[in-house]
């Protein structure tokens, strides 16, 4: 790593003033230090958020939903039995998210804001589009782990976060605070729409700090489940993941969300499949029909067409699990 200065502010306001270009935030550091060691991030100053009080732990208040501090370590969320009763999908999504060490160091805020794992992006020898270059090297390169849909900007990265699809399926939001004030955006809108051709993965602005994840009451009324395919049995980034959630009454699904991870640059809603099962009781034939609507507009690269049947099968299993079949 190249030398840099280091600040550990005690408040959000102080941190916000220190943040900026060349001066990024660090929390658990499990992603950022990797980028710095690889020469992809070369900060002049790190702003360590870990000294800010009040951003760890979670609470649930009647009518106000669930509020999780952004600095809460992932393992604390995974192992919390009370949280698993309020929002069981979090434990499911974290089970294979990373090693125990990484889950003890990494935070929920950092998990959502981690950068993509594309090997061309992470190799400083490749001046790819996302890093300011002119082309995507995965488009005609090694594309096993890359996107099959939503690649309008020509960038074939995928979202690696396990929590992002799970939280989108429950309509979760994030609070973004800065010296100028606080705004709330949906987790879905935290990710940059590829169609906008912005060379950024997230919509958080310079000087802003992700302080909380909030799951509104309506999101908590849904039953949710997370399914993940990996290329080995122990923890790994997903080949494809699926978060599905719905209000379930007498086997009938309402407010259905089906969100795919690791298939697109953003958590990807399978809208046609959602509509196909909305208001229905799902049996195996119904789940299979709905799953066949998933990724119909996908355009796979050389090595990643396998993601399409994989996503469909995970959706089928997730829907059956939701319906209790």
């Amino acid at each position, binding site marked *: *790593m*190249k*030398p*840099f*200065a*280091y*600040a*550990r502010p005690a408040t959000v306001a102080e941190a916000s003033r220190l943040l900026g270009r060349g001066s990024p935030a*660090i929390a658990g*550091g*499990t992603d950022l*230090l*990797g980028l*710095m*060691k690889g020469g992809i991030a070369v900060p002049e*100053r*790190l702003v*360590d958020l*870990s000294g800010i009080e009040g951003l760890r732990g979670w609470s649930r208040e009647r009518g106000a939903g669930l509020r999780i501090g952004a600095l809460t*370590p992932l*393992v604390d969320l995974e192992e919390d039995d009370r949280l698993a009763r309020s929002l069981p999908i979090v434990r499911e999504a974290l089970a294979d998210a*990373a*090693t*125990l*060490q*990484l889950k*003890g*160091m990494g935070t929920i805020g950092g998990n959502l804001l981690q950068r993509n794992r594309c090997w061309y992006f992470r190799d400083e020898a490749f001046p790819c589009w996302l890093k300011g270059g002119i082309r995507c090297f995965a488009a005609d390169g090694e594309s096993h782990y890359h996107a099959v849909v939503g690649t309008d900007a020509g960038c074939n990265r995928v979202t690696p976060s396990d929590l992002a699809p799970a939280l989108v399926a429950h309509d979760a939001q994030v609070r973004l605070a800065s010296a100028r004030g606080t705004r709330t955006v949906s987790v879905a809108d935290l990710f940059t729409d590829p169609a906008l051709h912005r060379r950024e993965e997230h919509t958080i602005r310079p000087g802003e700090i992700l302080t909380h994840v909030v799951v509104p009451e309506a999101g908590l009324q849904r039953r949710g489940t997370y399914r993940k395919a990996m290329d080995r049995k*122990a*923890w790994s980034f997903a080949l494809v993941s699926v978060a599905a959630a719905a209000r379930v009454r007498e086997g009938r699904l309402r407010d259905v969300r089906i969100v795919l991870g690791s298939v697109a640059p953003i958590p990807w809603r399978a809208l046609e499949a959602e509509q196909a099962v909305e208001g229905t009781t799902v049996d195996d034939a119904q789940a299979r029909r709905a799953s066949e609507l998933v990724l119909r507009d996908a355009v796979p690269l050389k090595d990643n067409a396998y993601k399409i049947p994989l996503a469909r099968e995970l959706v089928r299993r997730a829907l059956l699990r939701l319906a209790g079949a």
Partner: protein
Amino acid sequence: MLGPGAADVAFEVNGHPASVHVPPHHTLLDALRDELGLTGAKRVCDEGTCGACTVLVDGRPTYSCMTLAVACEGRSIETVEGLAHDGQLDPVQQAFIATDAYQCGFCTPGQIMSVVALLRANKAPTAEDVHRAVAGNLCRCGAYPGIVEAALRAARARRR
């Protein structure tokens, strides 16, 4: 504000106060090995995937290669060097010997620290609990059966 030059960082290492003079871009692993001479934690992948550098920070198993030394100000660090007391190895270390839970031994200090943390939180772990605890510690010799047996054996020894 610290750096980019070296600054004093004070923390506790194996129960004793320690101070290092390091620049912000040095990791906890750098500080332990190069400043304090504690070479039990190993530098292998140096990118947070192999677990050979695992130490406990405030009791949590942590990749010291992915932790900045300056971020450890005031924290409690435990390394494999701190486990033995009065010339007696820790029961986890004894169990690793008894079950021959290594071949080359390079991953062993990290494995042991992960098992120590597990046994503090869980007095009667199952084999599955041990798998989860050491899944972040790669052993390329394939000594996992011995490692799992060692953890279960150490847990039994502690309960006795």
